[in-house]
C-alpha cells in the first residue's frame, strides 16, 4: 500500500461531504463509481477485484485513492457504541438491545447469531438505518448516523448500505432489472449508466437470463439473488443481510452463500444475521447475541484473507 494521496484531505472526509452537502457532490459521486463497476463487469470471475482496494467506491472524485485505509486513523466501516433499544412503555417495556459495542473492519464478513428474541434483527434494522436506537451512537463509514437528518439518512441508505431481507422485498410488477435499477434511480443516476450497472450486478449474481422476469416469475433463490444484486448495485460500503437464506431451500441457500463468499473475497464488507451454524461457518467472524448483549465474538479467518469456506474449497481441490 502507498502513502496518502495529496488530493484526499483527510480520511473519511470525502464521505462526509458527500452526505452533508447534497447537490453537486452527489452528482459527481453518482457518475464516477460506474467506472470500477464497468471494469468489474467485463472481467467475470474476479468481478470486484479492481474495486476491492477501495470499498468506499462512491466517494466522490477519488475512486482509486486507496491509501486512506492504511493510515490507522481510518474509521471502521461500522462502529457501534453502547447501543440500546427499548420497545414499549412502563411495565410493558422490553429491552431488545442492552448496550451493544461493535466494530467492523473494512473487508470483514461477520455473522451475527442468536436465538429468536435475542435482538439480532433489531440490531440489523438499526444498522441499516431502518429503525432508530433509544440511545447509543453508531457510525457507518465514518458518518454518525444519529446526527443525520431525514434527507441525509436517505442518501446514506442509498449509497453506503445495501440491505438484503429475509423475505426478499422486491417490488412486485417490476422486472428484475427495474428492481435492481431502483436504488440508482433514487441516487440520481442517468438511464444509460443505470442500465449498465444493473446488468453488471445481475451478472455477478448469475441472473443474466432472468433480467426481464418479474418477481412472481422467479424462484425464491432467484428473487434473493436479485435482491443481492439490488443491494450491490450502488457499490455500498456495507452489505447487510437479515437471514438471507431463511426462506430458501438448500440449493438456493448454497447459491446465495456462494455469492456472498465471492463478494467477501473481493473485499466487500458483509454483516449477516443467521441462526444456522452452516451459514455462520461461511463468515470470517461470528458474533453471538443473547438477550440483547454480545456474549461471544469469535474470529474464524483473518479480515484481509478470503472467507473460510473458500479456503477450504481451494484446499480440497
Amino acid at each position, binding site marked *: 500500500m502507498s502513502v496518502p494521496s495529496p488530493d484526499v484531505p483527510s480520511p473519511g472526509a470525502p464521505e462526509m461531504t458527500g452526505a452533508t452537502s447534497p447537490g453537486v457532490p452527489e452528482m459527481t459521486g453518482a457518475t464516477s463509481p460506474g467506472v470500477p463497476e464497468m471494469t468489474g463487469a467485463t472481467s467475470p470471475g474476479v468481478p470486484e477485484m479492481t474495486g476491492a482496494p477501495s470499498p468506499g467506491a462512491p466517494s466522490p472524485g477519488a475512486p482509486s485513492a486507496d491509501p486512506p485505509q492504511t493510515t490507522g486513523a481510518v474509521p471502521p466501516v461500522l462502529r457501534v457504541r453502547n447501543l440500546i433499544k427499548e420497545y414499549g412503555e412502563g411495565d410493558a417495556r422490553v429491552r431488545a438491545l442492552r448496550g451493544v459495542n461493535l466494530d467492523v473492519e473494512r473487508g470483514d464478513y461477520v455473522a451475527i447469531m442468536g436465538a429468536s428474541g435475542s435482538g439480532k434483527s433489531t440490531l440489523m*434494522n438499526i444498522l441499516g438505518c431502518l429503525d432508530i436506537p433509544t440511545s447509543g451512537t453508531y457510525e457507518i463509514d465514518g458518518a454518525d448516523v444519529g446526527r443525520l437528518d*431525514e434527507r441525509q439518512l436517505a442518501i446514506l*441508505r442509498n449509497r453506503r448500505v445495501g*440491505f438484503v*431481507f429475509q423475505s426478499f*422485498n422486491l417490488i412486485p*410488477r417490476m422486472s428484475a432489472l427495474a428492481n435492481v435499477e431502483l436504488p440508482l*434511480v*433514487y441516487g440520481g443516476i442517468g438511464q444509460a449508466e443505470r442500465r449498465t450497472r444493473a446488468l453488471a450486478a445481475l451478472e455477478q449474481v448469475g441472473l443474466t437470463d432472468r433480467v426481464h422476469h418479474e418477481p412472481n416469475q422467479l424462484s425464491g433463490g432467484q428473487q434473493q439473488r436479485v435482491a443481492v444484486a*439490488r443491494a450491490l448495485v450502488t457499490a455500498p460500503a456495507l452489505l447487510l443481510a437479515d437471514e438471507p437464506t431463511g426462506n430458501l431451500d438448500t440449493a438456493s441457500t448454497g447459491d446465495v452463500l456462494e455469492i456472498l463468499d465471492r463478494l467477501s473475497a473481493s473485499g466487500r464488507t458483509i454483516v449477516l444475521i443467521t441462526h444456522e451454524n452452516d451459514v455462520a461457518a461461511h463468515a470470517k467472524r461470528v458474533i453471538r447475541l443473547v438477550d440483547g448483549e454480545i456474549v461471544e465474538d469469535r474470529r474464524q479467518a483473518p479480515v484481509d484473507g478470503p472467507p473460510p469456506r473458500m479456503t477450504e474449497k481451494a484446499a480440497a481441490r
Partner: protein
Amino acid sequence: MNQLEILRFALRGLLANKMRSSLTTLGILIGVAAVIMLVAVGEGSSQSIQRNIQRLGANTLTISPQFSGGGGGGLRGQGGGGNTGPRTQARQLSLADAKALTDKTLAPSVRSVSPVVTAPSSTAAYGAASHAISQFVGTYPSYFEAVNKPVAEGTYFFNDDVLAARKVVVLGQTVVEELFGTVDPIGKQVSVSGVPFTVVGVLKEAGSTGMQDADDVAIAPLPAVQQSLSGFGSLSSIVVQATGSEATTAAQAEVTAILNQRHGIKNGNADYRILNQATLQETVSAATGTFTVLLGAVAAISLLVGGIGITNIMLVTVTERTREIGIRKAIGAPRSAILGQFLLEATLLSLVGGLSGVLVAFVGTRFTVAGIEPVLVPSSVALALGVSVGIGLFFGSYPANRAAKLRPIQALRHE
C-alpha cells in the same frame, strides 16, 4: 432523483390498477362536467330570458290602469273590501293622459308616447280563411319603434292614417300564415269582425316569448280600432319610450308626476302602474343569476364527492402499498420522492378526470337541453378545472404525506 422518474413511478402506480384509477377519474369527470354544463345551462336560460325581455322593446315604460286598491300596502284595512273591488275614485287611462305625457317641458326624458287599445276577441277573415288574432292593437306609429316591432314587408302606417282613421293594418307573421298562406298579403283586404282593413305591412318574425306567440298580432291606427272594434272608451295601456336607457328612471318619475297630478293622487296610492323594462330586466337577471349559482352549487357538491373519492383511493393505495414504500425507503428513496410520487398520482387522476370532464362538457353544451341553448362560461371551465386539480393536490397530500413520513421499518412490518 429526476422529476421524470417520479412521473414514471406515478404512471406505473396508476396503471397497476386501471379499473380503480378509471373509476376515480370518472368521479372527477362527472363533477367537472356537471359544474360546467349546469352553469352553461343557467347562463343559457338567463341569456334567453334577457333576449326575450329586450324583444319587448328597450327603454320603454308600459303604463296600465290598476283597478285593485291593493297596489299600495298602506291602504290595507281602510274601507273594508276596498282591496278587492274596483276603487270608486279610480280613473281610467285616457287619450288626454297620453297627450299630457308628450309635454316636452314637464317630461323631457320622454321620447314618444303611444296610446294603446286592445280589441277583444277579434276574428280576421280573408276569403275562406279565418283566424282569431290574440292581440289586435290600435295605436300610434311610434309604437312600432317603442316595442321593437320592425316591418319585414310593406310599410308602417303613418300619422296621416291615424288622423284620418284609415282602416289599414300591419299583421304579424302568424296571422299572415294563417290567412294568406303563400299569397302576398300587401294591399289585400281582411275583414276583422266584419270591418274591412287593408294590409299595408307585415311584421318581422319575433318568435314566441314563452307562453305567448308574439307574432299572433295585428296593429292598426288607434282611431280606426276605436271606431270599429273597441269603442271610444279608455286606453288599455300607454307605451312611453324614454330618450335613452339611462333616462328610463327619470322618465318614470316624470310620468308618475304628470299622471298623479292628472288623476288627483296624493297619497301615493296610484290607480295605474308603470312597468319599467329596465327594472324588469334587472330583476330577472338577478333571479336567473341566483338560479345559475344554485345549479353551480349542486354541481360543486358532486365535484367535492369526486375529490373525496380521490382521497379514498389514495388512502387505499397508500395502505396497500405501505410495504412497497418501506422497500423504497430502505433502498434510499428520499421523502420527497415518495411524496412526489403519490401526490403526482393524485394530481394525474384529477387532471385527467378534469380534462375529460371539460371535453364532455364541451360536447354536452352543443346540445339543446330542455329548450335552452347552453352557453359555455369560460370562467366556469377554468374554475372547475382549477378546483379539480386543487382537490387532487389537497386531498392527495394527506395520504401522500402519511406515506412519506413512515419510518422504513414501520412500513416494512406493515401487512
